[in-house]
C-alpha cells in the first residue's frame, strides 16, 4: 500500500471506531467539544464621553424642519376650512344672481364654479405651498445644508376642471351635493397632496449632512 491509501484507511478505521454516543451533542466527549470558556469578569467601564456634541445641531435642525412642516400643514388645513365657507357663500351669491333663463336651463356646476373655485380655494392653497417651499429653502440655507428645494412640483393637478361635478346641474337644490363632492374629491385631496409633499420634503432633508 502506498502512503496515501494508508492514511485513508487509518481515517476510515478511526471513524468506524467512534463511539456512537458522540453523535449526540449531550454526550459529546470533552475532546469533541469546543474548548472555549467564557470568563464573566467585570470590565472597566469607560469614563470618557461617548456623546457627539455635533449631534445637538442635528436635533435642532430636525426640530426646525418639523416645526416648518407642522406650521404649514396646519395653515393649509385652516385655510381650506375657512375658504370652504367662503366658497359656499360664493355659490349662494351666484345662485341668487341667476337670470330666469339660466335658472331654467342650468349649466353644469363645474362650468359655473371653476374660476371661482380656483380663485377662492385652489389659488390660496397653492400660494401657501409655494410660500412653504421658499421658507424651507431659507431654513436649508441657514443650516448650511447643500440641497435645492424643488419649487415646481407642488402645482396640483387634482381635477383642474372640476369634472367631479360635471354631471351636476348648477341649481339651488344641488348646492349641498356640489359642496360635499368638491370637498371630498378636490379640497381634501389638494390639502392631502400638499401635506404629503411637505412631509416628503422633510423626510428627504432630515438626514442631510450639516456643514
Amino acid at each position: 500500500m502506498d502512503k496515501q491509501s494508508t492514511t485513508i484507511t487509518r481515517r476510515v478505521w478511526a471513524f468506524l471506531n467512534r463511539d456512537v454516543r458522540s453523535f449526540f451533542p449531550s454526550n459529546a466527549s470533552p475532546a469533541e467539544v469546543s474548548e472555549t470558556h467564557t470568563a464573566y469578569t467585570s470590565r472597566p467601564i469607560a469614563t470618557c464621553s461617548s456623546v457627539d456634541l455635533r449631534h445637538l445641531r442635528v436635533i435642532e435642525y430636525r426640530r426646525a424642519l418639523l416645526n416648518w412642516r407642522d406650521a404649514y400643514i396646519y395653515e393649509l388645513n385652516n385655510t381650506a376650512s375657512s375658504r370652504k365657507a367662503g366658497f359656499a357663500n360664493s355659490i349662494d351669491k351666484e345662485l341668487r344672481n341667476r337670470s330666469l333663463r339660466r335658472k331654467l336651463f342650468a349649466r353644469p356646476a363645474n362650468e359655473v364654479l371653476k374660476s371661482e373655485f380656483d380663485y377662492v380655494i385652489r389659488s390660496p392653497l397653492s400660494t401657501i405651498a409655494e410660500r412653504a417651499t421658499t421658507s424651507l429653502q431659507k431654513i436649508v440655507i441657514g443650516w448650511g445644508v447643500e440641497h435645492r428645494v424643488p419649487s415646481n412640483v407642488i402645482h396640483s393637478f387634482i381635477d383642474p376642471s372640476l369634472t367631479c361635478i360635471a354631471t351636476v346641474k348648477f341649481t339651488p337644490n344641488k348646492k349641498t351635493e356640489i359642496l360635499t363632492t368638491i370637498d371630498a374629491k378636490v379640497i381634501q385631496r389638494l390639502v392631502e397632496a400638499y401635506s404629503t409633499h411637505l412631509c416628503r420634503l422633510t423626510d428627504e432633508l432630515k438626514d442631510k449632512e450639516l456643514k
Partner: protein
Amino acid sequence: MITQILFEVPALFEAGLKSGAISQIGGLLKDTATGQILAHLQESSLAHSLIGNAMLGAASPVNLALQAGSIIPTAYTAIQVTQLKSMMSTLQSLQIATLGVSLVGVGVSVAGFVYMHKRFNSLDNRIDTLIDTVNTGFENQQKASLRAHMSQVKGLVQLAKQAESLSSPDKEYSRVADSLADQASFFEGEIEFVSRSSQKINLEIFWQLAQVLMVCNSVRIDCRMRTNELLNAQTIAESAAADYQRLFGPLTPVSFDARPSDGAIASETIKDITDAASTKPYLIDYLRTMGVNGREYIQTLEGEVERPLLMLKVN
C-alpha cells in the same frame, strides 16, 4: 470626580436665553456661538408632587399646553400655587411650550416609583375603558394581549417601588429594568399599529399608549441610575430617543382625529418630548464622566423641597 452635586436656578440663564447668547434644546442649554453645553435642566421630585395630579388627569396632550393657570388644581396651597406658577414660567422662559417634557422626565426622571405606579394605574384604567368604548381597530386577541402587558408593567413598577425595602435592591432593579425593556418593545409595536392605520389616529388611545411607553423607559433609566449603571442608563436613553424620533417624527397636527388646533398642541408636545429624550443621554454622559454616583444624584433630587426645576451647570 464630583463630591458634591451643585445646582443652579434656571433664572440665572434667562438673560442669555432672551438675548440669544444661550439656546435651549430639549433639556439642555448651550452656548449659541460655540455650541458648548452650559447646563442641563433637571427636575426635582417636587416637580412631580406639584404637577402630578394634573398629569394623572391628562386625557390628551392638549391638557399639557403651558397656558397660565390651566393646570392649577383648586386644592393647592398658596405656596404650591406659587411654586407651580414659577415652574411653568421657567419652562416658558426656556421656550418649552408644553408639560410633555415632564412626562418623559426633564433631565433624569425622579418621579419616583410611587408616582410612576400611581400614574400607571391611571393609564391602565383609561386604556381599559378606551379599548372597549372606542373603535380602535384592536382585535379581541390584541385587546387581551394589551391588557396582559399592562398588568405586567404594573407588576414591574410595583416591584421597583418595593425594591428599596430589600437588603440588596440592585438585583431587583436590574431585573425590573430588563423586563421593562421587553414591555417597552411591545408598546412601541402597539403605537406603530395605531399610527399606521390609514384612518386618523385616535388621539386619546395614542396618548395613553405613548405614556405607557414613556413610563417603561423612565423606570428603566431610573433603575439603572439607582444601581449606578450610568453607561447602561445612557444607552437606554439613547435608544429610547431614537425610538421616539422614529415613532413620533411622522406625526403632524392633522394626523389625529382631533380639531387642528388640538392636533397642533399634540404635535408640539410630542416634539418637546422627543427633544427632551434626545438630550437626556447628554446629561447622563456628563454625570458618568464626572464620576457622579447615580444613586446619590437621584437621592439629592429627591431631597429637594423648594425648587421644582434646577440647572446642573456644566464645568
